[in-house]
């Protein structure tokens, strides 16, 4: 495991562990409390498995009242709290701390109400993303954000990282689809923000809460927008001889005044792995594949696919194939959504989440390839091309400490590239612990201070999910009041092989 500095554990809290567990049992008798080592092991990490830490205990509450009582207790006793949904975070957002409890909302998974007249649903935060759409599908509606992990990930977690998904090109991300939340502040206060109507009075706290990675409060319920299901939808596969041609085609489609529902991009390694895993019917003799999906009536779909095909022809695709049936469509998406899992079967990987301006897509893919070659890692690219959200999957061996160190350097270099091209570090996975130290690539001290001041205003003791989002290393301790730093020495980073760098200017 690579080293990572986290806030100094409070030894006093750790010493009081038995008492804390006893008190938790008393104040939340209906909650499930996991205290044994094997049980806690399940919660020691999230989908960023390189980092692990056993929490003091894991609590799975069943109601907002319980969440409130637990947070109030932790506030009074200076116990840190790491909120968690399904633990699918790819950025370590749900990594426990040694002196923290994990507050896991997955048992709060009910649909509270469905109101098609006002086109909203009220749900508990632990419900899975796809369970919402399943609950309203018969009434002709769906919930739009669709992250790849949607069968597992929770709405609470989606809110924490402002999740997107393949179809957010048309429907927006979580912040555009949540109208209200019930949130429990660290001191146990329960506040309703927003509601069943489109605007709330005064400041709009929803964008502040959505994407705050569980650092400002614990969301226990949400009111989400329901959208009428389209008459139909159909993807088209466009295969190209080069990633460059595919990338240029994406920009041309958007420029052509057509905004499809989704434009997904896969490069050769990604196509082969997914096809092997799912038999989705992807062409194997292409360097890059686009899945372009449009929606509407039969005629509308035909018209749009025709138009996209016309635009694509300028980039000399060697495969143009429209889905012929709902079964084929399902298979095409199954392949795409299984991609991370499929690659995970072959190798350990880290998944980057940088975003770049669309016009820089060809350059970005080229540079990502060079950076990975420089560090001697294989990379598979599979991502939401329509909004420039890259997901290079860098393949490595997690059991090799040196590779882990190098893969982090490689990833950091890719994210640096994204920022330099005018983009950002993370489009939908969140900063977590993974990109915390890279925040200065994108922000100045003053930018970060402004965010930190909000954190301090709402959680002055830094008890909620501390050690995430904001850089710790190299930051003036006075600017992180309440955080007593506990900086571990990092191993000396390895320089990349010089001969591989030659002949190419990597920024």
């Amino acid at each position, binding site marked *: 495991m690579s080293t990572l500095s986290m806030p100094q554990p409070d030894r006093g809290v750790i010493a009081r562990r038995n008492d804390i567990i006893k008190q938790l049992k008393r104040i939340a008798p209906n909650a499930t409390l996991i205290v044994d080592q094997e049980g806690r092991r399940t919660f020691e990490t999230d989908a960023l498995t390189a980092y692990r830490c056993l929490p003091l205990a894991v609590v799975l509450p069943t109601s907002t009242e319980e969440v409130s009582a637990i947070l109030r207790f932790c506030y009074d006793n200076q116990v840190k709290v790491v909120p968690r949904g399904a633990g699918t975070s790819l950025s370590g957002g749900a990594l426990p701390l040694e002196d923290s409890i994990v507050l896991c909302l997955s048992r709060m998974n009910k649909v509270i109400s469905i109101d098609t007249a006002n086109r909203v649903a009220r749900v508990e935060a632990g419900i899975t993303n796809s369970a919402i759409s399943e609950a309203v599908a018969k009434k002709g509606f769906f919930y739009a954000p669709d992250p790849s992990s949607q069968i597992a990930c929770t709405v609470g977690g989606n809110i924490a990282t402002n999740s997107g998904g393949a179809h957010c090109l048309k429907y927006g991300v979580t*912040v555009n689809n949540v109208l209200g939340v019930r949130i429990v502040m660290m001191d146990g206060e329960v506040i309703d923000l927003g509601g069943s109507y*489109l605007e709330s009075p005064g400041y709009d706290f929803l*964008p*502040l809460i959505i994407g705050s990675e569980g650092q400002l409060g614990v969301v226990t319920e949400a009111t989400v927008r329901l959208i009428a299901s389209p008459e139909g939808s159909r993807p088209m596969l466009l295969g190209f001889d080069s990633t460059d041609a595919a990338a240029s085609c994406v920009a041309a489609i*958007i420029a052509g005044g057509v905004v499809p529902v989704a434009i997904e991009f896969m490069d050769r390694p990604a196509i082969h792995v997914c096809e092997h895993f799912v038999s989705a019917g992807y062409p194997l003799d292409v360097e890059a594949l686009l899945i372009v999906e449009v929606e509407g009536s039969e005629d509308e779909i035909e018209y749009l696919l025709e138009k996209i095909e016309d635009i694509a022809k300028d980039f000399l695709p060697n495969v143009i194939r429209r889905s012929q049936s709902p079964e084929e469509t399902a298979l095409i998406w199954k392949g795409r959504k299984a991609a991370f899992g499929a690659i995970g079967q072959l190798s350990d990987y880290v998944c980057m989440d940088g975003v770049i301006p669309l016009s820089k897509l060809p350059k970005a893919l080229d540079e990502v390839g060079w950076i990975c070659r420089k560090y001697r890692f294989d990379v598979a690219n599979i991502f939401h091309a329509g909004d420039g959200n890259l997901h290079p999957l860098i393949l490595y061996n997690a059991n090799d400490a040196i590779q882990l160190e190098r893969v982090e350097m490689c990833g950091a270099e890719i994210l640096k590239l994204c920022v330099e091209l005018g983009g*950002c570090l993370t489009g939908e996975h969140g900063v977590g612990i993974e*990109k915390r130290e890279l925040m200065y690539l*994108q922000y100045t001290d003053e930018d970060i*201070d402004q965010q930190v*001041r909000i954190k301090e205003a709402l959680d002055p003791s830094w008890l909620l999910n501390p050690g995430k989002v904001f850089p710790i290393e190299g930051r003036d301790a006075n600017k992180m009041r309440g955080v007593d730093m506990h900086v571990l020495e990092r191993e000396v980073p390895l320089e990349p092989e010089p001969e591989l760098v030659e002949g190419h200017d990597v920024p």
Partner: protein
Amino acid sequence: MIESTRLGFHAPETEEELSQLVAEAAETRTPLEVMGRGTKREVGPSVGSGAVISTESMVGIPLYEPTELILVAKTGTPMAQIEAQLAESDQELPFEPVDFGPILGYGEGEATIGGVVATNFSGSRRILKGSARDHVLGIRAVNGRGERIKAGGRVMKNVTGYDLGRTLAGSWGTLAVMTEVALKVLPAQRESRTIVCFGLTDQTALEALSIAMGTPYEVSGTLHLHPELAARFSDEDIAGAEGAVTAIRVENFPASARYRASRLKQVLAAYNPVLELDSSRSKAFWHEIKTLKMFQGKSNPLWRVSTMPSCAAKLIGNLSRKMEIHTAYDWSGGLIWIETPPLTDGGAVDIRRTLAEFGGHATLIRAEGATRGGIDVFQPLDPPIAALSAKLKHAFDPLGILNPGRMYREM
């Protein structure tokens, strides 16, 4: 130098200059009124500070990439300039911002993009495409300490740190003075069609609009006008209607918009949609909604109410038993414009009392200065949210110098 910030009108040309002015004001604890070109200055209580900071000299579009659907504008840029620039590439701001200029004594398109984002008033298309805040990708701003900050960026997706850009939307310049906004834009809708029903009661009309919203035809406008307001429109068939007017808009490429309109007419046959506006008439009609044609040339108090569509008709029914009101429902009832008689309180007591029963909130958009000074223009906040708001304000503007009292007296 410090003396100069105490009083008078300042329109810095650069963010650096602005940051110096605010820093000096912070040092001397001088309250600053923050505005763009002041076209919405008459909305809400007056700040009453001697010093005004305007963004009107920060004008321009440093970046517009039609192929990436993004536009970055300095906040003092007039809407007319933004919209003209977008139109050159057949694009538009999807949220169809309401233009208050013509009802408050200013010209069309005079408002600044900064003011549009800072007040977050979205138009009819909000039900399909989202609000102004939804389209904010990033901002640059100066906070109450005079520090230059940025948040978000110029790309479509971004969860790098807290989303301060969207948080500033709708904050009326009380948290920070925005200097630059990056917005998502979309291709302009080529064809617009509107189907119209006449003479429906409020309850029936909202029911029809709700049915329309539940169809897959991407309805982008759902409006119901009381007869006396319908009479103020230019379209002869709308103005000549002798009853209420219920309008449903669909947009897209021509064949699709026509198809959607015809499907909707079938779905809503029971409501007797007898009129269909073709693209040019439809566009002209919705442009008049955007500029609030139905409230132009009047001085009666005007309220903007946000509520649940299913409550809207009852809410208005109850209210109209208390006073004579003229009502326009937008967002299939989720947004209600209410013109009240020139009462001392503009109808505030009755409106807020009725809202307390149904849920929702009301903002007084237009009224005489005396009325505005005497009541809460913005919906009073529940104590827990007021406390949370005070914390947020303090995190951005600890000395409370930016637009004090602009939204709420105590902030």
